[in-house]
C-alpha cells in the first residue's frame, strides 16, 4: 500500500505479549538483538515469519510483532520448509533449542540444511532442557548431573556445528547471548545469506544450567577461550592477542605469537572455502581440548537454494509445456463418447 517504507525500530518488532522467560535468562538478550538487528534489513514486518518448536527458546515468536508459529517439538524446520516453498517471498526464521533441534528434531534439521532451503535457523544452546525443568540434552557435557542423569551423563555429546557441516551446510556460524554486538552482526549475516543459515548461540539458562558457558562469557577468561573468526584474517586470539592457530598436517595447534611464529604462519580463515573441511576442523576446536572456540562465521558459500530450485523447475516445465490445461489433461489417455440414446 504505502510506497516508501516506514523506518522501523527495535520496539516496532516487539509484540504485546508478556515475556515469560525467567528473569536473567539468556533468551532475553537474543530477543533484544534480533529486534535491534531486523530494522537494518529493510524487510517489512509482515514479510517476516518466525517459526519455533517447543522449549523455552521456542516461545520466541510470541514476542515478535511479525507472523509466527509456535509449532510442535522438534519440527520447526519442516513447517518452515513448507512455508518457504509455498511463499518464497517471505523471510523465514527458525528458532529452536538444543533439545528441540538436536534431539527430537535432528532429522528435520539435517534435511533442511542439506536441502539448503533459504531460511535462517537460530539454535539457542543452553546444554539443557529448560522448559521441562532440567534434563540433560544432546549438548550436555559427559558426566553432567541433571534430573535425568543423577549419577552423571554417559552420553557422548553432539557438536551442533560439526553436525551442520556434516549435513552440507552452506552457512554456519556461532555467537553468544551476552556478546551482543557480535550476536547482532552474526544474525544479520545469517539473514543475508541465500540458503540455510545455521547459527548456534551459546545461551545461559540461569535456572537449570547456570554458568554452562561461563568460560566463554566471564570477562577474565573469555578472550583465551574464544577465537573470533574474520574472513581472510589469521586466527589470533587471547587477551593480548598473542596466541594463534597453526595447522600441523591436518591438525590445528595453538601457538604463541612472537616466539619465532609470525602471523603469516597461522591458519587464515576462509569462510568461502569450497571444501567444507576447514569449517569442519574449526567446529572441532573445544576448550576442553585446549583450543579456543571459534565464534563468527565458519562457513558461508553460495549454492543453489531448494526453494529457488522448486520455482525454477516449475517455470521451466511451464515454459516447455505451457500452462497446464485440465480439460486437456483429462483427455490425455484414451477416451470414448457415449451418445445420447435414440431409442
Amino acid at each position, binding site marked *: *500500500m504505502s510506497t516508501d517504507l516506514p523506518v522501523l525500530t527495535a520496539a516496532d518488532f516487539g509484540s504485546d*505479549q508478556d515475556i515469560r522467560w525467567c528473569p536473567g535468562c539468556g533468551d532475553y538478550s537474543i530477543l533484544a538483538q534480533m529486534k535491534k538487528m531486523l530494522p537494518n534489513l529493510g524487510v*517489512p*514486518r*509482515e*514479510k517476516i*515469519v*518466525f*517459526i519455533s518448536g517447543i522449549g523455552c527458546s521456542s516461545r520466541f*515468536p*510470541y514476542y*515478535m510483532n*511479525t*507472523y*509466527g*508459529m*509456535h*509449532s*510442535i517439538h522438534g*519440527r520447526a*524446520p*519442516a*513447517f*518452515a*520448509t*513448507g*512455508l*518457504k*516453498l*509455498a*511463499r518464497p*517471498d*517471505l523471510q523465514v526464521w527458525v528458532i529452536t533449542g538444543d533439545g528441540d533441534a538436536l534431539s527430537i528434531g535432528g*532429522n*528435520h534439521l539435517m*534435511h533442511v540444511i542439506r536441502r539448503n532451503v533459504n531460511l535462517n535457523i537460530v539454535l539457542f544452546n543452553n546444554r539443557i532442557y529448560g522448559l521441562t525443568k532440567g534434563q540433560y540434552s544432546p549438548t550436555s557435557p559427559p558426566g553432567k548431573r541433571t534430573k535425568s542423569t543423577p549419577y552423571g551423563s554417559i552420553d557422548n555429546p553432539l557438536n551442533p556445528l560439526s553436525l551442520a557441516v556434516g549435513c552440507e551446510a552452506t552457512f554456519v556460524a556461532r555467537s553468544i547471548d551476552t556478546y551482543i554486538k557480535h550476536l547482532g552482526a552474526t544474525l544479520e549475516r545469517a539473514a543475508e545469506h541465500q540458503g540455510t543459515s545455521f547459527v548456534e548461540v551459546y545461551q545461559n539458562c540461569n535456572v537449570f544450567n547456570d554458568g554452562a558457558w561461563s568460560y566463554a562469557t566471564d570477562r577474565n577468561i573469555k578472550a583465551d577461550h574464544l577465537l573470533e573468526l574474520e574472513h581472510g584474517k589469521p586466527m589470533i586470539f587471547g587477551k593480548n592477542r598473542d596466541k594463534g592457530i597453526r595447522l600441523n598436517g591436518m591438525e590445528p595447534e595453538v601457538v604463541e605469537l612472537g616466539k619465532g611464529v609470525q602471523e603469516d604462519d597461522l591458519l587464515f580463515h576462509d569462510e568461502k572455502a569450497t571444501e567444507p573441511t576447514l569449517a569442519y576442523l574449526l567446529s572441532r576446536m573445544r576448550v576442553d581440548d585446549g583450543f579456543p572456540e571459534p565464534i563468527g562465521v565458519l562457513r558461508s558459500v553460495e549454492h543453489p537454494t531448494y526453494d529457488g530450485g*522448486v520455482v525454477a*523447475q*516449475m517455470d521451466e*516445465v*511451464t515454459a*516447455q*509445456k*505451457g*500452462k*497446464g490445461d*485440465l*480439460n486437456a*489433461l*483429462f*483427455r490425455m*489417455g*484414451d*477416451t*470414448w*463418447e*457415449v*451418445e*445420447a*440414446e435414440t431409442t
Partner: protein
Amino acid sequence: MSTTPQDTLHSDKDTESLLGATVRLAGDSGDGMQLVGSQLTNASALAGNDVATFPDFPAEIRAPRGTRAGVSGFQLQFSSEDIFTPGDELDALVVMNPAALVTNIGDLRDRGVLIANEDSFAGKDLKLANLDQNPLESDDLKKYNLIKVPITSLTRTAVSEVKNADGNTLGTKEADRCKNFFALGIICWLYGRNLEPTIRFLNDKFGKKRPDVAEANTLALKAGWNYGETAELFERNYQVQPAHLTPGTYTNVMGNQALAWGLVTAANLSNKELFYGSYPITPASPVLEELSNFKNYGVKTFQAEDEIAAICSAIGAAFGGSMALTGSSGPGIALKGEAMGLAMILELPMLILNVQRGGPSTGLPTKTEQSDLLQVMFGRNGESPLPVIAARSPSDCFDVAQEAWRISSRFMIPVIILSDGYIANGAEPWKIPDVAELEKISISHPGPIEEGETFLPYSRNEDLARPWALPGTETLMHRLGGLEKEDLTGNVSYDPDNHQYMTNIRQEKVDRIAHVVDPVEVSGPASGDLLVLSWGGTYGACITACRRAREDGMSVAHAHLRWLAPFPANLEEVLKQYKKVLIPELNMGQLSLLIRAKFLIDVAQLNKVKGKPFKVSEILKRIRDEIELLK
C-alpha cells in the same frame, strides 16, 4: 485422442450375447499381467462397457519366479449394465503357469473358461509351485471348460520373423516377454474386444525406441486372436453390448489418479497453488508421483524426509495460503497424529489423505482394508475432532477431493480423506467434466485493517470459521501455536472456562458440517426390513448385493456414508426406517462401533479382514440370513 468403438477384425464363429463377464489374467509377476489387464480394461471401456478392475499383486518387487508367492493377477468385470465391482466369480481365467492355476482356480465358476499356457505345466514350473503332478491332468478341472494352449511356443513362432535394429531376430527371453499379449489376443477374440487400442498403445510406448518390441507384441496379440478364431478349441465367442452410460466423453481412471486430478481441479477452482507434502508409501505413493508431473499446473510436490515432516510442511504451506495436503497410508498416518492435533487447533484448512492398506503395523502393504477409520477419528491426544470423508470408488475420488477442500476451506478445518488400496489401484470409466462448469470454490483472505482496529485471528464467522490471514498482509501480524488459545485473540490461555469453550467450539465446528453436506441417500425402499449401511470402497459390493436382494424380492435398502464425521444430519432418521441395519466392513467393526455409540442401535456386522474386498455374494448371503432372521 478419442475413438469410438469399432471392429477391426471380424470373427466368423458363432457369437453369443452376454450382459457382461468377469475375467482374470494370472501369471508370474514377471509375466506382465497388470499390463495386459489394463489394456483389456481399456479396450472394454472403449467398447462402451462399464468396467471395474481389481489388480492383485505380491508385496515383493520381483517375487520369486514361478512360485505361488510370485503370482500376480488382474481381474476385470465388463458389462452392458452399470456395475460397481470387479465381479465375484470368474467367467474366464487365464493362467500362465501352475502357480497361477492353483492359487486362482478357486474363483472360477463351474463351466467357466480356463485357458492355461500348457507349455509351462512341466518340470521346473511344477516344482516351483510346489506341485508333484500336473494339475492340468487332474479330474478336479473337469467341471471347467479347460482350454490348453501352448502359449509360449505359439508366441515364439509368432514373433520369429521380427528383427531388431541390428537386424537380429529376438532372443528367446525377449520373445517370451510377448506371451502376455498372445493371451490378451485370445481373450479379445473371446469377448469381441477391439485390438486397435492395444496396438496403438504398443506403438506409442515402444514405436520410437524399440519398434521391434512394438511389432513383436502386436504380432503376438494378433496371433492370439487368430488362434481363438482358427483353433477348434472354442465353440463360440461372446459379445457384450455397450452400457447405458450417461452421454458424454469418458476415459478410464484409477483411484489414485482420479484423486490427484480432483486435487488439482480443486486448487484450480479455488485459485490456489496446490502443495503436497508426502513421503512414499504403498499404496499412496502414486498420488505423489502423479502430482509431481503437474509442475505446470501450479502444483508443488515435496517428498519430505518422513511423514512427520510431510504433514508439518503442509501445515506450513497452509499457513502461507496454499491449498495444502499431506498423504500416506496407515503406518504413516500413525506418525502424523501429533501434527494433526496441531493443525486442528491452528484451525487452518488442509487435507490429510489416508490410502488405507492391510494392518496392523506393516501388515499387508499391498492388500486392501478399511481398518484405519478409528485411527483417523481418534489417533491424536486430547479432544481433537476432525471431519472425515471417504471415497467410494476410483472415479469418486475426483469428487471427494473437491468436496473435502470445499469444506476445509469454508470451515477453516483440516479434513481427512480416506481411500484404500482397492480404490487406489482399481479403475473404472469416468465421465470427463467440463472444468469451466464445475462450481468454483471461493476463498477469501482478510486484507489490512485501519489503525486503531485490532485483528482477531480467532474471531469467527457464521460457520465458526476464523479468518485465514496470510503472512505478507500488512497489519495482520499474528502468532499461531499449539497451546490452548484465548477466544478471539488467539493468545495463549490457561483459563479453565476458555478451555472448555474452545473445546466445545472445535467440536461444534465439525458438527455443523453435517448441515451443509448432502443428506445420506437411500437406494431401495424408504423403509422396510433391512438397511445395508456402507462406507468407502465397499460401496460397489454393497449396492450390487442390495439390488440383487431386491430382485429376489427382499425388502432391502442401501445407504452409503460419504462423511464419517460428522454423520449426515438425516442419518438417524434413515436408520430408524428399517427393522435392522447391516454394516459390512473390511475391518472388525469400526463404523459399527461409531453407529452403535451414536445411535444406540444394535447393528448387525459383517466383518472381513483378509486383505481382499467383499464379494457381492458374501454380502448377499448375509442379507439373506438377516432377512431370514427377521421372519
